[in-house]
């Protein structure tokens, strides 16, 4: 069955996949329309009126965070590379402790809508806001492009559309849907899409996990044995992907740094903390997110080894979408076309929800930080700021569609890792310094943000992912001199170092009264904006 499916380069029945996805779109559109009735103020549009509860927001965070890369990508990585795929998910999970312990509550107490609100609280407003908005837009852009590229690959696998034009049309439809959600629903609508998607994704993964475990007599050791029988004993131990050379080992250390330190600096994650009324709810959000994300990654461990044993490496790699096809192929093997339809719809929903979250974050940052605070010096005409945000949503949406069509067939898998590396190098140092180091200055913030951002991008531009290797983005030329594919091991320490250096060399000190204010507010929540009343 699978063999014939692979030959026709599609699995399952496209119309089932499309109708289930259509049902998801219909349901979420109704929810978004209902949720958008109260979108009046900036706090409504950007922060959903701060009216979500911790559990709701935690589920939405899981929906935002568990992108197609973590669902399809990690299942596939475990199916193909065994243990090394599992290493990824551990980094993605442990990273949440940084957010929980050091960032979430203090950010919620100090800021209003964006990361820049916190970073510019006691430093020079305009330059710091511009820098923070720049890093926010860059991270969102890389992440967005990775998601849209993933959409193209999924289309060919799940809908049987293999020609470029057909795929481009589907990417455009996904992008247009996303624009509608964000335009109408704002943060409230986006949040509901993410909550529904997270519930579907986790439920779907749970069913498949129980199924795979049932096949193996609910014995993890039996499952591992089955995976080792098909994929070789090596899948049970680390080393298949990263253990090949000294360089690849170092590359993994570099990646691990970016994964664990990047999450707490991802702007679309940080922005979610403003959708709850208090720091206590922000804390509950992270707790819910950690449990949901952790459970989900445990499911992917079973699913990955399940796909490895039931489908096998060769068939997965031969299918369209290669590594990403492990989870859909497993769904087809277990539950036939209907389960495949559900999982495909979930995969599309995943892309839609993550892209929506990124777009509203980027639009908020542009409208609130650049337009309202810098261009209009904090005094935009009434209602104009949200208008700018909505226009930005459309522009980013069109940009995402064009980018998604443009990168088709390109190897852009590195973009998610790069987004994490930029977040860890450019955002996290400044966030931690502003929250915990009184003496931190504007110069430190600017050096750290631009230095972290610049070094991460320069290193990746001259790395083997861009040129000089078989899998490079640009073929036929070789201008690489940085040996690793992950810049984190250099750019993250550099971001921290520059923040320190810029601060200690500053001759002007920042206002100590505002530092005290930030200190008191961040820990007590005094003056933090609560839920809006309707």
């Amino acid at each position, binding site marked *: 069955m699978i063999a014939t499916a692979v030959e026709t380069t599609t699995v399952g029945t496209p119309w089932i996949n499309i109708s289930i996805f259509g049902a998801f779109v219909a349901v979420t559109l109704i929810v978004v329309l209902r949720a958008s009735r109260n979108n009046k103020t900036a706090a409504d549009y950007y922060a959903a009126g701060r009216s979500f509860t911790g559990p709701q927001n935690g589920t939405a965070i899981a929906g935002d965070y568990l992108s197609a890369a973590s669902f399809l990508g990690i299942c596939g990585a475990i199916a193909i590379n065994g*243990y090394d795929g599992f290493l990824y998910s551990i980094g993605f999970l442990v990273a949440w402790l940084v957010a929980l312990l050091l960032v979430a509550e203090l950010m919620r107490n100090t800021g209003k809508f964006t990361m820049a609100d916190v970073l510019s609280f006691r430093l020079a*407003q305009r330059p710091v806001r511009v820098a923070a908005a720049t890093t926010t837009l860059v991270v969102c852009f890389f992440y967005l492009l990775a998601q849209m590229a993933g959409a193209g690959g999924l289309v060919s696998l799940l809908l049987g559309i293999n020609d470029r034009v057909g795929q481009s049309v589907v990417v455009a439809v996904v992008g247009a849907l996303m624009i509608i959600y964000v335009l109408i629903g704002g943060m409230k609508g986006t949040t509901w899409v993410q909550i529904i998607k997270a519930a579907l994704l986790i439920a779907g993964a749970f069913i498949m996990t129980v199924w795979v475990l049932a096949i193996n007599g609910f014995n993890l*050791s039996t499952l591992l044995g089955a995976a080792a029988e098909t994929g070789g004993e090596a899948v049970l131990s*680390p080393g298949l992907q990263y253990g090949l050379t000294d360089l690849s080992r170092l590359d993994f250390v570099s990646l691990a740094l970016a994964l664990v330190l990047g999450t707490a600096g991802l702007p679309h994650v940080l922005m979610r903390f403003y959708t709850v009324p208090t720091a206590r709810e922000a804390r509950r959000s992270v*707790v819910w997110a950690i449990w949901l994300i952790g459970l989900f*990654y445990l499911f992917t461990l079973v699913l990955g080894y399940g796909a490895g044993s039931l489908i096998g490496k060769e068939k997965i790699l031969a299918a369209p979408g290669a590594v990403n096809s492990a989870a859909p192929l497993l769904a087809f093997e277990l539950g036939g076309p209907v389960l495949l339809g559900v999982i495909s719809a979930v995969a599309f929903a995943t892309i839609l929800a993550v892209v929506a979250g990124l777009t509203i974050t980027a639009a908020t940052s542009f409208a609130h930080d650049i337009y309202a605070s810098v261009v209009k010096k904090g005094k935009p005409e009434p209602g104009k700021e949200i208008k700018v945000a909505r226009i930005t949503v459309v522009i980013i949406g069109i940009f995402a569609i064009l980018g998604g069509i443009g990168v088709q067939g390109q190897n852009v898998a590195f973009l998610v890792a790069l987004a994490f590396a930029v977040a860890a190098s450019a955002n996290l140092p400044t966030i931690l310094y502003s929250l915990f180091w009184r003496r931190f200055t504007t110069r430190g913030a600017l050096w750290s943000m631009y230095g972290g951002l610049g070094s991460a991008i320069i290193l990746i531009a001259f790395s083997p992912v861009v040129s000089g290797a078989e899998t490079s983005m640009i073929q036929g030329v070789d201008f690489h001199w940085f040996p690793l594919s992950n810049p984190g091991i250099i750019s993250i320490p550099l971001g921290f170092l520059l923040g320190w250096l810029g601060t200690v060399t500053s001759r002007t000190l920042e206002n100590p*009264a505002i530092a005290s204010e930030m200190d*008191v507010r961040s*820990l007590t929540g*005094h003056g933090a904006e609560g839920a809006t009343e309707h």
Partner: protein
Amino acid sequence: MSNDAHETGSTTDFEATERSESFQKLKRRHRGFVFPLAAAFLLWYFAYVLLADYAHEFMSTKVIGNINVGLLLGLGQFVTTFAITTWYVSYANRKLDPIAAQIRTDLEKTEAGR
């Protein structure tokens, strides 16, 4: 529409609040808890990463059936993450929130009384 308290000219004396004994206690308790814990989980995570990266033989030692040291340590990362989360929440609820709420109420009273 200004977004910054310090631009709206807040007259509250935050420096006095910051010097107050209860705030210093809150700050000490918060940092005294989160800093060591953050250092500990990062060390444990990187120890695990380095083992997975450089000690393949050790990690592939079988423990029960096909379950090896690597898998147990990896699942251990999940367990410690869940445990630290639960521990922090209970600590914050018991030791941090009451002081923070007290300081906030006092500040609001002073501001309302002006």
